[in-house]
Every structure is written in structure tokens, then in C-alpha cells.
């Protein structure tokens, strides 16, 4: 079996061809190998054994996470139309001042209570809207820094790739 010895040599030099390596693997999977090759049998067996390792199960999220898995472009367009609706609603259905009372709102500006119900409502709405707007616009560019519960922080991979992919996508359009 000079051939096997040749291939083994190439193997350890890192120069064996894929077909040669296949032959080698097959050879060592057989029970009969030459005595001088016995020593390598467990090595190839070890490789075969590692190949049998299987991953844990990943359960594709369905419930909670669906709400954030939207195409951002689609979302942006939809968010714009929502904003339009809000505007229309405000125009045609101005707040009925009789409905609101101080009890519905609690407002402190710089530590001082705003007693006037209308003002209180106005300030509250303003603050909430401002926050909503920031949140909404924060999703616009696909720059995401995400470090979830674990201590891992591999977000850089995705930052770079997101940029690359955006670039590729824009080239493809």
C-alpha cells in the first residue's frame, strides 16, 4: 500500500487532494489497516466522532418577537400613514375638554404641579408624542446596536454586515 503511505505523507504536509483525503478516510474506516497505520486509526475515528455532534434546538420565535420582525421599509411607510391619520383625527376630533379632568392626568413640570386640566393634558400629550416620535424615527436607519441579556457583544459583526448589505441592496436596485 505505497499509495496510502504517499497520501499520508501529503496529508501531514497539508497537500493532499480532496479525493486523496477521501480515500484515506475510507481506508481508516475499514477494520483492516496495516500495522504501521494502526496508530492513525483513532485519529480518523476522532474526526468521525466529532462529526456526529449535533446542535441544540433553536425554536423560531413566534409570539412576542413577531412584533419587531418587520421590514423596516414597509414599517416606515406605514408609520407615515399612521401619522397622517393622527393628524386628521386631531383636526376633526379635537379634544372634548369636558371629558378630561385633573384626575386623568398628573403633571409636574420642573417639580411643580400643573393644576389646570387643559394645560396638564397638553403637556402630557406633548411629552408622550415627543417620546413616540423619537422612538419611531430611531428605527429609520438600519444602524443597530444590540446587546441583549448575555454578556456577549458581537454586534459589530452585524453593524458592518448591515452596512455592506444595505450597500449591496442599493446597488441591486
Amino acid at each position, binding site marked *: 500500500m505505497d499509495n496510502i503511505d504517499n497520501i499520508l505523507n501529503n496529508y501531514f504536509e497539508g497537500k493532499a487532494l480532496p479525493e486523496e483525503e477521501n480515500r484515506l478516510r475510507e481506508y481508516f474506516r475499514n477494520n483492516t489497516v496495516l500495522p504501521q497505520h494502526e496508530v492513525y486509526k483513532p485519529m480518523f475515528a476522532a474526526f468521525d466522532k466529532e462529526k456526529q455532534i449535533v446542535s441544540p434546538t433553536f425554536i423560531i420565535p413566534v409570539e412576542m418577537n413577531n412584533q419587531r420582525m418587520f421590514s423596516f421599509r414597509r414599517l416606515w411607510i406605514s408609520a407615515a400613514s399612521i401619522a397622517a391619520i393622527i393628524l386628521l383625527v386631531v383636526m376633526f376630533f379635537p379634544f372634548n375638554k369636558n371629558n378630561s379632568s385633573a384626575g386623568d392626568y398628573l403633571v409636574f413640570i420642573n417639580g411643580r404641579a400643573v393644576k389646570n386640566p387643559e394645560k396638564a393634558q397638553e403637556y402630557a400629550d406633548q411629552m408622550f408624542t415627543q417620546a413616540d416620535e423619537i422612538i*419611531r424615527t430611531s*428605527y429609520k*436607519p438600519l444602524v443597530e446596536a444590540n446587546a441583549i441579556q448575555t454578556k456577549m457583544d458581537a454586534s459589530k459583526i452585524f453593524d458592518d454586515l448591515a452596512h455592506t448589505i444595505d450597500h449591496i441592496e442599493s446597488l441591486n436596485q
Partner: protein
Amino acid sequence: MFMALAFVTTLSAQQLEKLFDKYMEDERFNYVYQKKASMMDKFADLGNMETWGTDKSYTSTGRQMISLNSTEKSLGESFAQEVKNALQADKYEEVSIVRNGKNRVETYERKSDKGLSKVSFIKNPGSIMVSLNTYAPGK
């Protein structure tokens, strides 16, 4: 005012709520609390990405927000840390962090049989805003 506070603590958030209580009358902060959903809220929620596509239906049971309008760095940092500690203590789950320019928006969530609590933690130079939206299950 005490009645309002009672409403505020209904959904047993504890630490975060306490933080709101602590600073609501602090002159360096603005605080707003809205007890129940109005028509405006329903639309505002639609604009809030987090509620899109939820299978369960929830009704808003109120929202509150505190904002620190100060450029004083150490105050901002210590407040942000307090918020972070409170979120951890209350076992909120981080949902996402998004950064856009100067704004950094972190959203958190906590679900239970009693309902849903969502927190948005917005940081930018010069202001920090923390909002808490609470929801009860059902229409």
C-alpha cells in the same frame, strides 16, 4: 394625587415606579402621568412599533413618563444608572436597543398574566426620558 399614585403602583412594578415617585416632584425633572387610554393613545400606540402584530389584545391602563432635562453629565449618568438598576430589579427584559444619531432608544418589556409593561428608555445628550406603558389583557 395620592389616588393617582395608587393607580400607578397597581401593576406591581415596584422599583421603577419608586423611581418615578422619587423624582416626579424634583425641579430638574418633568413628569407626566395619564391614567387611562384616550382616543389619542390608541393612535399613539399604533405608531409605537412594539404593539404591531401582537396577537393578544391589550388595553392600555395608563402611561407615565419622566424626563430629566439637564446637561449636567453626572446627574444624567447617575439617573441612568438608577433606571438601569430598577429595570433589572423589576425583571424587565431588554427587547431592543436602537441608535439613531444622538438618540439611543432602549425598549424593555415585562409580561405576566396580569398584563404587559413596556418601558422606553431614551437617552440623548441633554435629556433622558423614561416612559412606562402598562396594559391589561383583553379588549
